[in-house]
């Protein structure tokens, strides 16, 4: 048995899994689960390699960049891969149980595995054109997942999502064109070496706007709430927990390799983040449906991540990306737990209208508990990973003297308490029930997956120090 580079396996295993799941529709679930497991194994091997070597670079086809394409794994990218694999595996386990419809099942697995291929490709990629192709793989698979349920609302939301996705990708492509125009190459090293110029500024602007559209930063978030709220639960979990992170990750990398030309722009992005936190908070307070509330909370969290990005200001990106990375990881784990739990609650009760949650005589206790645990991390209460991320954010902002970012973060936190307590009230109120408290359908595999994720979101906070030192491996953003 020849040894194959784990970097390659990380990409090819989900791809082969998708192919197998598509041509063998009856066995799709088991083939898919096996592929996700195997991918997890490859990522584990990659973790080992990165721990040993700091970074792992593979030049595909033996052609060195800029002509060829290299894949590079360092601490940050492997952390993202590991988060994706871990969350993906648990969502897959949940999906085994919660997708009952044969047709949904058949299509879920190939699309999800293609999505995984695309995301792994993004985290390993070092070539901006390749990233463009990867985000398109992600976009098509993600849209397919969004409309899995086939309801009118889902299809309508999916179409909006599709438009936003294509437009974002095309803006990115145009940016790639300008990079080539100026530098004649497309790899990250070329970006780092490039002198500032008009074409590079144009390229950066195009790519950043495209990515912000894909990652749904306020006010480009318009497509997100409907898309995430109307998808089936496992798909929502994947979309909200993982998919938006891919564009966010590219944004982090790009803005480090091609620094924003002006500090005002950094502040502007922070202000957009603040806008997301406030506007998303208001909308979450007004949301009538549980999944919609959770989707708006994703908008808020993305805003928070951009504040984390912006708070570095003059201190420089060398530190602020860590806060952003921690928040990205925390949100990925917690939000997927929350969407799965919300899906379970909807399945059991039969609807997800927040105002009527307490009228139901069925109380899916475990799913509600899971939801609350996930909310702890999303609100950012200790000792969850979300808390650690917020701590790092506020610490940096304070050290740099940016009190406004501290204030926005605190307001956002309070608002999140307010909107989540609407949900908790629905869980815990008992005086408006229609009948006697009835037994819910019992525990299911679909309960175990989100519970594990939620517990992970909280207990990973205790492992923040090793996580932080891991994402610094291989100096993702240079040795400074």
């Amino acid at each position, binding site marked *: 048995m020849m040894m194959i580079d784990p970097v390659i396996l990380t990409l090819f295993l989900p791809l*082969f899994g998708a192919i197998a799941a598509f041509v063998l529709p009856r066995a799709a679930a088991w083939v898919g689960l096996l592929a996700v497991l195997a991918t997890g194994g490859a990522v584990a091997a990659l973790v080992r390699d990165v721990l040993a070597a700091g970074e792992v670079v593979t030049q595909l086809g033996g052609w060195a960049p800029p002509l060829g394409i290299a894949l590079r794994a360092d601490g940050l990218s492997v952390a993202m891969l590991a988060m994706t694999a871990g969350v993906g595996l648990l969502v897959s386990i949940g999906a085994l149980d919660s997708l009952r419809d044969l047709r949904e099942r058949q299509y879920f697995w190939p699309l999800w595995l293609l999505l995984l291929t695309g995301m792994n490709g993004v985290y390993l990629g070092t070539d901006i054109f390749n990233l463009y192709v990867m985000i398109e793989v992600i976009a098509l698979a993600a849209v397919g997942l969004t409309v899995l349920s086939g309801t009118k609302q889902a299809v309508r939301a999916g179409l909006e999502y599709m438009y936003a996705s294509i437009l974002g990708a095309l803006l990115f492509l145009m940016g790639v064109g300008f990079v080539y125009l100026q530098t004649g190459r497309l790899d990250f090293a070329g970006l780092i070496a490039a002198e500032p110029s008009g*074409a590079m500024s144009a390229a950066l602007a195009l790519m950043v706007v495209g990515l912000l559209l894909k990652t749904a930063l306020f006010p480009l978030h318009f497509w997100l709430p409907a898309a995430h709220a109307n998808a089936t639960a496992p798909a929502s979990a994947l979309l909200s927990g993982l998919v938006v992170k891919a564009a966010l990750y590219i944004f982090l990398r790009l803005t480090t390799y091609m620094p924003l030309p002006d500090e005002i722009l950094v502040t502007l992005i922070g202000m957009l983040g603040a806008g997301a936190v406030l506007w998303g908070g208001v909308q979450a307070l007004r949301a009538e449906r549980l999944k919609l509330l959770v989707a708006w909370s994703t908008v808020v969290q993305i805003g928070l991540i951009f504040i984390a990005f912006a708070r570095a200001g003059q201190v420089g990106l060398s530190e602020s990306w860590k806060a952003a990375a921690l928040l990205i990881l925390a949100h990925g784990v917690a939000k997927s737990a929350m969407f799965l739990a919300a899906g379970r609650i909807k399945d059991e009760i039969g609807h997800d209208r927040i105002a009527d949650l307490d009228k139901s005589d069925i109380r899916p206790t475990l799913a509600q508990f899971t939801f609350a645990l996930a909310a702890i991390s999303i609100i950012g209460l200790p000792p969850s990973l979300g808390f650690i991320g917020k701590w790092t954010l506020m610490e940096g902002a304070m050290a740099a003297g940016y009190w406004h970012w501290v204030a926005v973060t605190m307001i956002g936190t309070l608002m999140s308490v307010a909107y989540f307590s609407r949900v908790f009230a629905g869980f815990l109120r008992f005086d408006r029930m229609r009948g006697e408290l009835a037994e819910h359908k019992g525990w299911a595999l679909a309960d175990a997956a989100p519970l594990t994720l939620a517990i992970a979101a909280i207990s990973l906070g205790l492992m923040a120090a090793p996580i932080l030192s891991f994402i610094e491996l291989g100096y993702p953003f240079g040795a400074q």
Partner: protein
Amino acid sequence: MTDAAILFDLLLAGSVIALAIASLTVRDMFAAIVLFVIFGLLSALAWVRLSAPDVALAEAAIGTGVTGALLLKTLHHLRYVTGKLGEGPARGLTPTAPVPAGVIWANAAFCGMITLGLALAFLGAPRSGPGFDALVAEAMPASGVDHPVTAVLLNFRAYDTLMEVVVLLAAVIAVWQIERGLSDAPAPALGEVWQGFARLTLPAIVVVGTYLLWKGSEAPGGAFQGGAVLAAVGLLLLLSRIYVPQPAHRGLARWAFVLGAGAFAGVALLVSGGGRVAFEYPAEHAYALILLIEGLVTISIAVTLAALFHGREPVAAPVPEGRNDT
């Protein structure tokens, strides 16, 4: 001569822009699509002028031909479901809320500013600056093929190309998923002349597609152009009802969809080992391997594009023949 060429360029550029504007502003959607097709063909022509025949072929065949067919099919479907099949101009098929003129102008002004900025950036950039020219020239002998574009697509940046095939696969899975159980608009009755035309041209298209694929290793052409031309065969078959997709063919279709991506990725993996990494074809077999991959990818592309045109997955349940227009 140069002046005449420049004049031609200017005329062509002007027409391209005019057609772009026209296709977005003309009210009849059918006219918009026709204008778009002309726009695409003229763009392809412009790319020939820029010595990019491969791109021009791909744009003409895929970007314009297949896209145009997809758009027309969709238009037909929309007319069918909205009960406007018999009407002349296709207007207002999707629900619209009027956009205030102010918003349009604000957007236009915004985009105008973007254009200005991009144009300035473009003018300031080194247009014929350093590229991959030298690197490609140096690496060509080891690539296994003689045509640089094919070498880039199938060897230097084969990873990109693999993922592009994966995008196509994702699209067809998504389309099957989206349209499952959707009843189709009845195909327009095209008549005897059309049938005869289809039968006459089918073999010729097959020959042309294969030729393009084969020629790709040394001259403009290759898997994508060849695949698109072969997809036209599929379109003809579908439109003329010579072939009607059956549920029993689904399994075969699935295999055909994944053939390209699977073979491409499989070869990429199999060649690695023995000191080589993925996609690193051994020099002595490079030509054969590339041709093999191209051949299989072409089949996949052709079938996939045809399936994208056909849309929904053929299902066992008979489609209710509800609204039959005559």
